[in-house]
């Protein structure tokens, strides 16, 4: 299919033998192809398909087999670009092109998790959202703001960021202090708040990961289901990790349906 600007988007659909209980649209992990890290998204899709879901995995612009290229950059620049919404419109275009009536659930991991939350905010047809390892802080964190600064400039930046952190924690995440906390993915936080309590959202994390720390520190998980799977890291380093994630997603969707 094609995105709004004509960019070719390539998808793979896993169709169950019976009528699908829901369609799960998977956004790729950051700059990886739709097979996902260690081909885990292919495996996840097969497992969910066996459980009765239609699963669609997409290659979005710049990566995998998508038609458009993105400018050469460091890997951290690519991450930040995706975290800032590079793939949101592409995923919305894929969602709009789906030709079935099953309830639509979005799933994404890491950068893909950011993409699905922001896409769900814009698309009322999205019935539910599941994320794995959702980062609410931009790649590089506060360190990215300090890079290259020396002397007084560094001191001022530290003071500014310290003030931002105080406001965030003092207000329990209710206030987003913009330029004082530029490491925080504010559009993502707004999207989470727009969804909280209105549509089912499951935030899944690996027990060996640490991205969930920021979510808890700023109290951003209100109105959402949060689950932590012990022994799993940021990626799916063991094939059994994928099986556990698939079982958790299946059980949660059954509960909300």
């Amino acid at each position, binding site marked *: 299919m094609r995105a709004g600007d004509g960019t070719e988007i*390539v998808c*793979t659909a896993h169709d169950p033998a019976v009528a699908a209980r829901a369609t799960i649209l998977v956004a790729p992990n950051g700059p990886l192809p739709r097979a*996902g890290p*260690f081909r885990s998204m292919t495996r996840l899709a097969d497992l969910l398909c066996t459980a009765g879901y239609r699963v669609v995995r997409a290659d979005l612009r710049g990566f995998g087999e998508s038609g458009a290229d993105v400018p*050469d950059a*460091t*890997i*951290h620049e690519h991450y930040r670009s995706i975290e800032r919404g590079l793939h949101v419109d592409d995923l919305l275009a894929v969602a709009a092109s789906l030709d079935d009536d099953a309830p639509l659930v979005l799933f994404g991991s890491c950068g893909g998790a950011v993409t699905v939350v922001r896409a769900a905010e814009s698309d009322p047809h999205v019935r539910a959202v599941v994320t794995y390892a959702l980062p609410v802080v931009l790649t590089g964190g506060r360190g990215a703001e300090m890079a290259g600064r020396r002397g007084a400039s560094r001191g001022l930046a530290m003071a500014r960021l310290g003030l931002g952190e105080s406001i965030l924690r003092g207000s329990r995440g209710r206030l987003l202090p913009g330029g004082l906390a530029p490491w925080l993915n504010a559009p993502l936080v707004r999207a989470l708040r727009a969804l909280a309590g209105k549509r089912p959202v499951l935030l899944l994390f690996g027990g*060996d990961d640490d991205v969930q720390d920021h979510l808890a520190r700023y109290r951003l998980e209100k109105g959402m289901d949060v689950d932590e799977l012990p022994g799993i890291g940021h990626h799916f*380093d063991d094939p059994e990790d994928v099986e556990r994630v698939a079982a958790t997603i299946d059980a949660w969707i059954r509960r909300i349906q």
Partner: protein
Amino acid sequence: MPDLDYLFFGPNDALYGVAGGPPDARRAVLVVSPPGVDAVRARRVLFRLVRALAAAGHGALLLDPRGSGESALAFEETSLATHVADIRDGLHELARRFPEAHQRLIAIRYGAVPALAAVQPPAADALLLIDPCLDVRAALRQDLRGEIAKRMRRGAAEEGDDRDALVAQLDAGRPIVLDGERFPPALWRGLNGSQPAALLAIWGDRATMLRSGRDTFVPFHRQLPQARVTVEEPAFEAAALAWARS
């Protein structure tokens, strides 16, 4: 940009590929995606290579052998025989799409031995092997170093998780986890039992080896903050295009 076809083909449509180039191309290249985690690391690079080959007027087909990419089967279900059969099916598809073309073949890392074995006697004009794992045991031991380091960082390393023990496990016919997938004992047996030096000798000067470094696509995957990633202009893309022209 050339038009590309995204297709499932072969027995039971179990193989996935991306094809491009004029039907009357005089030369066509089968690009075999490597087995295991390299397939994920290499995806954009190889996709761009196929697009560049097609734009240069060559026929091109990027093939996912079963157990990798978008093709059927899990990696652990594959063997040397499945990889060899898939490459032969890829060559058939290439011939069907580009009937007037002389065929060439590109294979990468663990895909090198299956490629050497698939086209004996040599049915293709030329073979380009990128960072081939011809000493499979040494290559696996090297890859296991990273795997064990990763387990230790996660605190998930178990007693006996050393390279000798893991290789012995494979030798005994039990799969081991490498980069999130189970490395298949059947493939291991086949790769170890092959004689790449003898196969290479048959190819003679029609085989070219390109060494881009031990870690072929790792700079992209390892996420080094300072690394310019290989989404564009991988080191070997220009070399592979020049090889295809020659």
